[in-house]
């Protein structure tokens, strides 16, 4: 484990900044605090892993940061813009332009082919069909899936499906990528491939990446690990490149 460090990295200044985030859920009569005052920030081009046991609030934090969920208290600023000041429509458009999502269960639409799945966020943001097709193919090619473009998700392996999901997340060339347990459903080889892709994206310097995981070996591929427990940031550790786990040592996520 590396040393605990402050979040700022490389003088870029923070692009994502959350302060005092609280989020409660009602479960029958009782209230459960999923987030109980989280302060957290990510610098541009940084790759951060959110770690913690089940139910510690990782996914809730990611949802609040991405504007999918609204915190009960606290603020989220992305590049200085206050998310809570945006309307649902503005947040939606912001996601379409600046964010990409990768989920544990891939969440590809089963009725569309791989290529159509990748086209979808482009079409949603109003890109023309022809343009969307061209750009989707280009991203798929980058993912090594050009020959699988016409296949339905069910005809692809788990790793291929997740690479399609990554392609979908990248299609609109977003600056932020949210990955919620991206390797959770993959074997170690496939997980390694996906993490390699994420790492190379981070190395481009153009993407800020937040990964939710409870797998230490996955988290160790990030620049920094933020440990959550009971809805609070318990600890943070910065990993220098030496501490980062090499791809070969990855274990299967669960």
């Amino acid at each position, binding site marked *: 484990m590396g040393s605990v460090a402050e979040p700022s990295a490389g003088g870029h200044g923070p692009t994502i900044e959350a302060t005092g985030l609280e989020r409660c859920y009602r479960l029958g009569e009782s209230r459960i605090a999923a987030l109980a005052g989280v302060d957290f920030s990510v610098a541009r081009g940084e790759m951060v892993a959110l770690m913690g046991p089940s139910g510690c609030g990782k996914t809730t934090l990611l949802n609040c940061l991405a504007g999918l969920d609204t915190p009960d208290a606290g603020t989220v600023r992305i590049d200085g813009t206050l998310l809570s000041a945006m309307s649902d429509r503005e947040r939606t458009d912001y996601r379409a332009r600046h964010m990409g*999502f990768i989920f544990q269960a891939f969440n590809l*639409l089963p009725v569309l082919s791989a290529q159509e799945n990748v086209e979808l966020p482009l079409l*949603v943001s109003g890109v023309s069909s022809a343009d969307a097709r061209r750009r989707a193919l280009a991203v798929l090619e980058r993912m090594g899936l050009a020959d699988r473009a016409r296949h339905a998700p069910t005809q692809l392996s788990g790793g291929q499906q997740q690479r399609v999901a990554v392609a979908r997340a990248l299609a609109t060339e977003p600056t932020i990528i949210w990955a919620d347990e991206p390797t959770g459903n993959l074997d170690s080889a496939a997980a390694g491939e996906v993490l390699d892709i994420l790492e190379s994206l981070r190395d481009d310097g153009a993407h800020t990446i937040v990964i939710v995981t409870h797998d230490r070996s996955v988290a160790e591929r990030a620049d920094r690990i933020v440990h959550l427990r009971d809805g609070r940031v318990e600890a943070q550790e910065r990993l220098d490149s030496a501490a980062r786990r090499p791809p070969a040592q990855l274990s299967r996520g669960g």
Partner: protein
Amino acid sequence: MDAIFGLSTIVLAIVLAAAVVAAGVVIIVLALRRPVLVKLGVRHIPRRRGRSVLIVVGLALSTTIVATSFATGDAIASTVRGLVASSLGRVDEIVVSYEGGRRRFGDSDLQNFAAGQIPALTGDDFAQDEVARVEDLLDNHPGVAGIAGALARQYPVSDVTRQTSSAAITVLGLPVELPEALGRLQTTGGDAAPIGTLGPAEVYLNQPAATLLGAEVGDELAIDGDGAPVPTVVRAIVAAGAVGGTQPTLVAELGWLQEADGVPGSINEILIVNEGGADSLRWSAPIALQLRSRLIDDSVAAELHRLLRMPLTREGLRDSLDRQPELLRPLLERLVVQLDAPAATDEFKALIGDPRLLSGLRPALRQLSSQTGQDFRPVFRGLDGLTVVELKQLGVDLANQLASVFTSVFLVLGLFSIATGIMLVFLIFSLLAADRRPELGMARALGTQRGQVIQLLLFEGALYDAAASFLGALAGIGVALLSIEVIAGYLRTYSFEVTSQVEPRSLVIAFSAGLLLTLVTVIIAAWRIARLNIVSAARNLPEPDGETRPLSDLLRGQQLRAVARTLLTGGPALLVAGIALVLVEASVILDGIGWSAILVGAALMLRRPMIAAGRSPRAAARSCTGLAGLALAVFWAQPLSDGPRWQAVGLVGSLEYLALGGLLMVVGGVWAAASALELLPVGARAFGRGSARLPAAAIAKLATAYLVRHRWRTSLAILMFSLVIFTVTVASVLLAGTRYAYTDSGVQTAGFDIGVELNPQLLPNLRAHLAEADGVAPESFSTVGGQVEIAVQAIQLDAAEGRWQSTQLQVVDDGWLSGIGAPLTHRAPGFDTDADVWAALRRGSGMAVVHGSAIRAGASATTAVDLFGAAPFRMDGVTREDDAVPTTVVWARNLDGGPPVRLTVIGVVDARSTLGRGIYVPAAALQEAGWVSPPLDRYYFTTSAGVTPRAAALGLSRSIGAAGAVTILDEQLRATQGIRLILNQLLTGFMALGLVSGIVALGVIASRTVVERRQQIGVLRALGMRREPMALTFLLESSLVGWLGIAIGMVTGILLARNVIGLLAGGNPEIEFGIPWLQLGLTAVASYAAMLLITVIPALQAGRVDPAEALRSD
């Protein structure tokens, strides 16, 4: 109503109720054994009130349809029964006389009678002594409570005191010694009003007559009989409903009326009242049997028995059975049985003495006589004289039959809606189960048996079911009563009282049928749901591939898919089976099914060649199924042919064939569309560009992709919707056809205002009489036309099948020809206008025109035939669709012999005109040919400007007196056809109930879709899809289903309606096929709007799905 589809309603009610009780007992026993399952089953009901209400409403629809059908039938039955009872009082049978081959008691009399008219008014007078003879013949029959002779007339009556008058009041003469059983006349104050207390020239006036004339006790009345007006005084106003019934009636002492009318010692009816009070009808048949068998002369009966036993008549009679009217058929069936006996039995004598049978037998025998050269006239004469009419029984039969017809029609048309309703119930339960899947999975994991899961679902379903059936039955009755109220409002203007009463057995049937139908569907659904995969259900994951997916098998179409696979590989088997069926020629329906199998089989066999030619197996399969569906639809869209085979099938058989065809047409259409769903995404590509606000390409791509992916669910939804649109379309087009036939009164009455049916023996020359008589000025009329109908045979020598066939000659005078306003639909070459044609007829030289019914129109399966199966004359060489008629020579001959007359047909009168069928020929033309034509007995009048038909009719009525019956043609038409049109409207409204099923079904599917796709919605929202486009995607998906359903339903509906009208036009040439574009357009728009309205809620829900929450349901 006693029977439906030939089943006794009492038996049906008992069986259904017993089944409901049995089901209830089983459910209660199960519930008591495991109360915890009941608790688990029903606990969701109060929690989700809104959804529970929706479910109950959805489930109630089928019951509503059944209940509406029965309640409408009941109301019609009780109305007709009420009319019969009120127009007869306690009289059960009536003896009347039809002398000298004058008008017979027929269907039209029955209709008149159902409207409250006394049959004696169309019969002849006979000696009062006949009462004693009838008493003798009845020979102290234990069923007879009382007998009385009476004289009934219909005369104009004026109230001299009030200066009011009425053209038609029944004047009834009753004997002083009125049997107790006939009931007592009572004043409106409740005092007895015996006939014996009437002084000379005193009368009782019943309440309706008093209201009509504004008369009061002591008023001086004048009865405008045949001679001078007879003055009388109103002794008292008597209550309606006893003797004399509810029609406006004036009651006088018989002897006085006979003197005043100049017919001393004559009566025209003998009233018979049965023993047994309310149960009196059970005596009707034995009394009628005894009286009829004794009234008919043995030698006449023996001769007729011999004639009817001849192979020609016997076979003809047997073969024509299917094509005879409902009311006549049972009598004929009994007659055919009696012909097996070597000699005339009492039953045979009673049958041939039945006026209903005689009305058909007489013209058919005349026709046969002329065909065979045998003289049947002595037999006819023997059949003349007194005859018994079981009036009350007939009325009740008529009521039941009408009710049964209505209920059957409603139910048959409702079947499509009920089918949709059942699919809806299934859908609703799949939806319910989808929500509870994890819970059910957990229950199974914890050791709950599959059977117990079924029970758990059953308890919930049974509760919904009971509530829905109760609600549905109530709603159905409400709908029916409301519609009856609409008709009643209209009928009251014709003083026709409608009573709406729903019989308990109908309620029981509707409730039980609805309940059982739903329960069975629920059990099947529960059984399939219980076969869930425990692990995936508990984790709410999709059912694994390769296993059965009980949850939504129907939606996902696993079984259907298996059927489709079998079909695809079974093309040759289908082809062979089809060929075998066609070769057997068992029935037209099996033939049709055979041809369908051949077409579908052949289409499916194209798969291999297509694959060989380089198409992918999947594309080849789709092309084949598409082709098969299309072939099926095209095959059943064909109109019926005009072959002899169809004539043997008859109307009912043909309609059954067409109904099945309609269903298969829809199925074929949907099948073809389902196979071509891939075209939708291709079309979606046309949406090249959009914006974040409206990403058209994304919306189109998503909406179409889901439809293609869930092909079976899509097909099921399209099928449900197109079925209901189909029924509404068929109803609309049929109604438009009848509206065309029955709303242009100018065409129907041929431009005349007043009609008079005259007894020429009493008044041989109407024109001369009118010139002299009081009451009406000759200048009130601009034209007066005379007409008489002669039964003849006609032949067209150049026709393909030139043979003598029966028809009528409508012999018309010069006045008729100059006043006729009926348009001609066809004219011969050289005649530029209708006037030219009529002028040519007036010039003579054997010119004639035929009625539209005498030319071919559509399939002739419904051509009316006589009792021996002989079809009427039809002209060859011209059809209804032609623009002109070739000048055609037709020969006509009198049934009683005489020289044939040569007629040149130069026009066709619009089939909608009601002045008579057959051939119209000027009287002069017949005289030239040496015919002695009978005296004119029908007259038509056109009133002069400034004279109202009503005033002129009153004057005519006064002047003609008992020699004829005057009707205002337009009013008569409105009364009968207005009812027909209103009933048609009701039917359309009823069809709309089915539409509700279809629309609710689409709503349920839409909300189910949203529930299923929650997580995918979350992904799309995360990817940046706004709420509105999200909702639009769902709306577009539902809309595509709606549009396809509307298109398929409308096209197939129009095609079926065209074929049905083609069929009906054989017997009712006035009905014509036309597409009511506006109405259909409105239906399409309204049903689409309703569909949007119901799917917009789930669509908006989709837009409101919280992405974080939806993704968490992962």
